[in-house]
């Protein structure tokens, strides 16, 4: 092994609470060689971010404190270095990229200036030279027109471009180590693939060492040299990736690997049998649907065709997956089906009746369908306890008698695998997965024929993701539900759905039985989507270089 660039020994971080100390990082030791990419995985809350921040001594709260161990950077001790020295280390030696570029970039400062700032501070260049250097960095991270884009503001870019800018800012002061804390979690697969490739490119060009934090085993499998697994504040396992993936030592690592939703190799024909007989009335029948949003102001009116002529039929008992990149119109389609968004043209029939034909139909729709939302926190009213929320739905829907409501609430919670104790909990005191289950319980309270689940697992931890998918599978089987499942995670759709619909820019580009679409994609876009999914097997490489289109900086965010 080469001499370590960064060496962490028995690093311990504690939280000084009123109830005494709580150890958040428990004697973590690792090292990082020059040019090496170390993947850091672990469940949510296991201390990955904390570890990263400890390295540059930027703890998120004054109540956290490094209580022991050492961090040495090229032999220099960082835990005791004076603050002035740390200013040079941060950025200058260790650069950081954060998960959410939208909130970490200064919204009121030009992209270029945010990069220049670091250059000027660390390299003491004058304004002109710094600007030139910044333009150069922008070009390196893949901005097609860096001189012009220097003057743009973060909100004028798409998520992927913002992440590139964030990387640019981290590179601005020319660090030797780059810490990337979940740099792609917020992005969709195709963009994720681009960003990962960019990181690898830069690593290759600059000889950087990288610590890559992620939830996704697929990613580490693809891009890292070594993998470290964290669990409850401890580093439970670290090793060369192939060895570790092939023979995980720790139970948590094993469960991580098993719950990773990979695309199966072969067809799974078993599901086909469940298709109902033809001739039955479709639950949802969408014909030439257009949804158009007006944009802009008084003088420069514009419009976005969010859904641009979609025709789709969903039969009772069917499980249909809708996939597609961010902004392809999936949510809009879902909302239109439920009458939550005005339709520009086309018809939507529910159980054979046009939902535009009157309030009565809309009422029926509301009583027979339910939606599960993408963001588990925002979809629940923060002021209501789970019990009150369910009771209210039951009361308004009026399908069961008032006296039975409490009992029914309990049953619903059982159904989604939450204990009855959750009746008195408010969303704030629940984890994401628990909130999502409550959301599903609420959907079930309607006793619907049709559930539309809009990216309801995207925000969750893999392990929880797996649980929820399992829950849906069960529900569909037990209650003969019709399910429309929207996601951009292809693997999940592949596992759950009989049929899959691929959307791109408001139109359906491909549609068919899941196993067929995934194994033999007809449309190039579908193929690109599938290829962009990082496989847990390191030997199935991510996205062939030729597929990497130069990103366009057109994406003005909505």
């Amino acid at each position: 092994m080469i001499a370590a660039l960064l060496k962490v020994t028995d690093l311990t971080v504690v939280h000084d609470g009123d109830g005494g100390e709580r150890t958040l990082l428990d004697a973590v030791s690792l090292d990082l060689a020059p040019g090496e990419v170390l993947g850091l995985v672990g469940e949510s809350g296991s201390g990955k971010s904390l570890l990263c921040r400890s390295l540059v001594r930027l703890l998120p709260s004054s109540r956290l404190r490094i209580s022991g161990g050492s961090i040495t950077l090229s032999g220099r001790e960082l835990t005791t270095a004076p603050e002035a020295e740390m200013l040079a280390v941060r950025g200058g030696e260790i650069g950081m990229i954060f998960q959410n570029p939208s909130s970490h970039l200064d919204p009121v400062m030009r992209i270029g200036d945010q990069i220049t700032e670091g250059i000027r501070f660390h390299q003491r260049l004058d304004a002109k030279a710094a600007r030139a250097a910044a333009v150069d960095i922008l070009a390196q991270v893949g901005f097609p027109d860096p001189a012009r884009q220097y003057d743009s503001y973060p909100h004028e870019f798409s998520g992927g471009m913002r992440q590139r800018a964030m990387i640019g800012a981290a590179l601005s002061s020319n660090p030797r180590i780059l810490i990337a804390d979940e740099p792609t979690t917020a992005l969709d697969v195709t963009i994720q693939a681009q960003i990962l490739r960019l990181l690898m490119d830069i690593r290759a060009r600059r000889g950087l060492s990288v610590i890559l934090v992620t939830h996704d085993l697929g990613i580490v499998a693809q891009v890292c040299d070594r993998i470290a697994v964290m669990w409850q504040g401890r580093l439970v396992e670290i090793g060369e990736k192939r060895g570790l993936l092939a023979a995980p030592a720790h139970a948590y690592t094993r469960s991580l690997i098993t719950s990773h939703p990979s695309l199966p190799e072969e067809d799974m024909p078993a599901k086909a049998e469940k298709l109902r007989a033809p001739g039955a009335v479709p639950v949802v029948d969408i014909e030439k649907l257009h949804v158009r949003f007006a944009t802009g102001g008084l003088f420069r009116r514009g419009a976005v065709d969010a859904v641009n002529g979609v025709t789709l039929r969903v039969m009772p008992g069917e499980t249909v997956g809708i996939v597609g990149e961010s902004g392809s119109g999936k949510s809009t389609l879902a909302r239109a089906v439920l009458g939550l968004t005005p339709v520009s043209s086309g018809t939507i029939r529910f159980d054979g009746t046009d939902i535009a034909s009157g309030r009565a139909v809309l009422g029926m729709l509301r009583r027979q369908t339910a939606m599960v939302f993408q963001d588990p926190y925002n979809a629940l009213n923060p002021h209501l306890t789970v019990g009150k929320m369910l009771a209210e739905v039951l009361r308004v829907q009026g399908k069961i008698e008032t006296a039975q409501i409490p009992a029914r609430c309990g049953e619903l919670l059982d159904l989604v695998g939450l204990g009855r104790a959750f009746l008195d909990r408010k969303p704030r005191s629940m984890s994401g997965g628990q909130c999502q289950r409550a959301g599903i319980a609420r959907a079930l309270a309607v006793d619907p024929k049709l559930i539309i689940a809009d990216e309801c697992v995207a925000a969750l931890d893999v392990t929880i993701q797996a649980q929820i998918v399992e829950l849906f599978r069960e529900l569909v089987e037990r209650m003969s539900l019709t399910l429309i499942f929207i996601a951009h995670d292809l693997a999940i759709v592949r596992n759950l759905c009989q049929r899959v619909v691929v959307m791109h820019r408001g139109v359906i580009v491909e549609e068919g039985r899941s196993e067929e679409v995934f194994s033999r994609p007809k449309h190039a876009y579908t193929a690109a989507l599938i290829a962009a999914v990082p496989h847990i097997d390191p030997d199935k490489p991510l996205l062939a270089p030729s597929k990497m289109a130069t990103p366009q900086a057109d994406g003005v965010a909505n």
Partner: protein
Amino acid sequence: MHRYKFVLYRPLQFLPVLFGISVITFILVRLIPGDPARVLLGTRATPEAIARIRAQYGLDEPMLAQYFYFLRNLADGEMGRSILYKIDVLKLIATRIEPTLTLVLCSVVLSVLIAVPVAAIAARNQGRLADQVIRIVSTFGIGFPPFWLGLMLIILFSVELAILPVSGYGNTLSEKLAHLVLPSLTVSLSLSTVLARSLRAAMVEGLKSDVATAARARGMPESIVFWRHVLPNSLVPTVNLLAVNIGWLIGGTVVVETVFALPGMGQLLVRAIFSRDYMVVQGVAMVFACATVLINFLADIVTVALDPRVKL
């Protein structure tokens, strides 16, 4: 540059607002019991004299007709005649507008000059002594009526220390500025409190924000983090708050003008209300309204300039 295109069409929206204000003022002042003719004539008034004056100023006509004349005058760029001063209202306002404008301007500048550093100190020492002291002092700033504060300032600075004029306005620019120090300070003591509280809150958030963390992770020292990232991001809500408060501020100049004998529009307004000088009340109300609308408009422009995300 289309983010600024509201500059073109926003002024159109002023019209209904000003129209609304003219109607309300018109009705309101005439609903007040009391008769301008009687005020003018004083205790020695006789009914004939009153009738004569009323006829002379068209006060005996139906309200609708009076409003119509008002609008017609307005279209000609006039606002009628003051009953008390017997001159054209616009002319009268022109003689009184400057002290009020400068007072408002100085107060705003001073408030910002006070609020920004105070909020900065409080936010950067959140929860510590400095923060608490500022909180307590600022509560006093808000809690004491301006007419009392103003008087105390006069006693301290003008009588005891004798470094500033007691009251009035001046002739030359430097005289005017000297005369405006205490009045603006009086206004600012309460306004800056409001601003500083909002600014402090925004800064506290800002210091904890991801933007600040990211800057620190790039090795930026705390001063750069604060002044280049936290402060600019905190200003937008404060500018809006300032804009909302400007109407209140302009209204508040009345009391300050009285205490400091500034020959501004606030004093004019009070005297006009008490003497039922309808046209003057109307005129001043319109001018105040225009100013408020205009300043809000400016605030919108500043907001757009400060925050590239904002579209109006």
